[in-house]
């Protein structure tokens, strides 16, 4: 296999809580690789560390209270981002690695026109004049499918709808043609029709510009449609990683199974939605052993004591003892 574009190894991002009473281990030993041109989906429910992972890659974690533990490695084209000086890091942000944020309503500066904001990265990284940046902004707005871009470029964010703003955010991220795009829940704040449009747009732009996309979402449907490979996160750890088709065909980790069972299906008879019992535990006190054991239907003594490593063969691995002892898997409850 070729050298990955972005390699995250044993990433640990901790937050010291108020008055030093405890340490929230928001991201606790996450590793994955992103290759040129592919889409990697990161899935998990709220609080599992998805967003902290993505912010850590660009080192946008507020420090303090947050800090990335020594020993963590985030390699981009062979350079460890965690060892870079602030100026070198800024040269990468928005230029080589760009990010689309979750909330299009609040992620644009209300006092500047969208043209100013789309062109900003080009001014910073390519030294464009204001005039050239404006022309570039119009070009980008055309690319992301904003109608009448030459007029819209002078609009303020409040004059645009949510879907349009998310397009602007994407334009803003892509101005410098980055090699990696981190999309943190890019469609969560949008309604479904707009969501489909935005995902389609991302897919088209990825093909046109040949970039790698790190797609962070809690929506398995989005992942199924977009990602080549999937990383499932739970409690600050990677619990399963697999090519998308393999993951949906045969999930190995009970958490992944639970997530899939919780997706409402339009083709199944109406029934109560499956839910995973309990909640994600607090990041200041992860459970011992396997972090999923309190919520796992299959858990036995070993799960409470010993933390499983990522087990499995080839490109499909899961952090679960069941991989080694499949006989302990309890039969699925009869579906209502």
């Amino acid at each position, binding site marked *: 296999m070729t050298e990955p574009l972005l390699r995250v190894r044993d990433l640990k991002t901790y937050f010291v809580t108020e008055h030093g009473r405890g340490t929230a281990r928001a991201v606790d030993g996450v590793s994955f690789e992103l290759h040129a041109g592919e889409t990697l989906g990161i899935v998990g429910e709220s609080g599992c560390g998805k967003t902290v992972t993505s912010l850590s890659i*660009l080192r*946008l974690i507020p420090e*303090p209270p947050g800090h990335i533990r020594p020993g963590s490695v985030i390699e981009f084209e062979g350079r460890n981002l965690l060892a870079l000086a*602030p*100026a070198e890091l*800024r*040269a*990468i*942000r*928005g*230029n080589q690695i*760009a*990010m689309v*944020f979750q*909330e299009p309503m*609040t*992620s*644009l*500066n*209300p*006092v*500047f026109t969208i043209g100013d904001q789309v062109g*900003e*990265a080009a001014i*910073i*990284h390519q030294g464009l004049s204001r005039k050239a940046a404006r022309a570039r902004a119009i070009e980008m707005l055309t690319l992301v499918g904003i109608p009448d871009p030459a007029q819209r470029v002078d609009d303020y964010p*409040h004059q645009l709808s949510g879907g349009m703003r998310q397009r602007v*955010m994407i334009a*803003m*991220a892509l*101005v410098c043609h980055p090699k990696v795009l981190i999309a943190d829940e890019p469609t969560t704040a949008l309604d479904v029709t707009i969501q489909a449009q935005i995902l389609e747009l991302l897919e088209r732009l990825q093909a046109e510009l040949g970039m790698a996309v790190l797609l962070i979402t809690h929506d398995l449907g989005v992942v199924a449609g977009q990602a080549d490979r999937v990383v499932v996160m739970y409690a600050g750890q990677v619990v399963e990683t697999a090519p998308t088709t393999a993951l949906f065909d045969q999930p190995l980790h009970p958490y992944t199974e639970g997530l899939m069972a919780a997706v409402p299906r339009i083709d199944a008879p109406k029934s109560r939605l499956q839910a995973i019992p309990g909640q994600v535990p607090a990041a200041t006190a992860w459970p011992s052993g396997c972090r999923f054991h309190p919520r796992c239907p299959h858990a036995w003594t070993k799960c409470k004591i010993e933390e499983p490593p990522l087990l499995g063969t080839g490109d499909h691995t899961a952090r679960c003892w069941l991989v080694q002892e499949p006989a302990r898997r309890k039969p699925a409850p009869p579906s209502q």
Partner: protein
Amino acid sequence: MTLPAFFALFVAFAVATWGVREARLRTARHEAGRRFFRHPTAGWGIGVLAFFVIVAVAAPLVTSYDPRAQLDIVHLKNQPPSWSYILGTDVYSRDLWSRVAFGARVSLIVGALGMLVAVTLGTLVGAVAGYYRHWVDAVLMRGVDVGLALPRIFVLLIAIALFGQLPLAALVLVIGLTSWFGTSRLVRAEVLSVRERDFVAAARAVGAGPGRVIFRHVLPNAAAPIIVSAALGIGNVLLLEAALSFLGIGVAPPTASWGNMIADGAPYLASAPWTTLFPGLAIALVVMALNAVGDALRDALDPRQEGRAT
């Protein structure tokens, strides 16, 4: 006073009135403009300020005498208001209206520039403290605490004792340098809240450095309270200048400022009250107008009063 001067004064008055009317009409299309003029005394405030600014700018036109000239020290001292000397004359037989008009130049310039120095410095310190937080914030804000704890008038007295009579530029600087503490606290609080907003993270994610983030993304979103505090602050600086001049340590005579005019007239309060009344009235009017405009600006600009979604 000569006929052309009366005429010019009338024009100044008319222009100020017309200006207010025009401003009201032109801003009526904007929500913020309507909110501004909804304030009961905003129109009057703008009018008074406009009038005094016009008089200050056109001082040679609206007056007929040199403000420093002692017209006739024997026969014309402490004359009550008349058609020739509309506000009367002072103890040195100088025309009071000329001195009020030329004094407006000094007082308004000291007020505006002093506040400009204070707001610039306060904004810089507050923004740096609020953006970097931690030890930078702690050091700067403890410095501000010290600044706020020192009685300002004594700091000014020390400066004047050290350097003697200050030229006007130095006076502006000294007033500005001792007036920025409150502003910096205000700006810091505002920056602390704005820096957490999503678009600031988005700006950092496209590679903007700290300077760019502070000046392009944070401060413009914190502008409203800064503008309001500046408008209200000019009045304070004006009063401070008047107080210093009254004590004889501000603007040096014979240059007219409203403060030293009151000082000149104070001994004759009983026999020639107009010599203190008119400059005092000018100070009171301008400060009241500034407060009204500051309040109205707060109504118009401060987003927390809006309560409307975009």
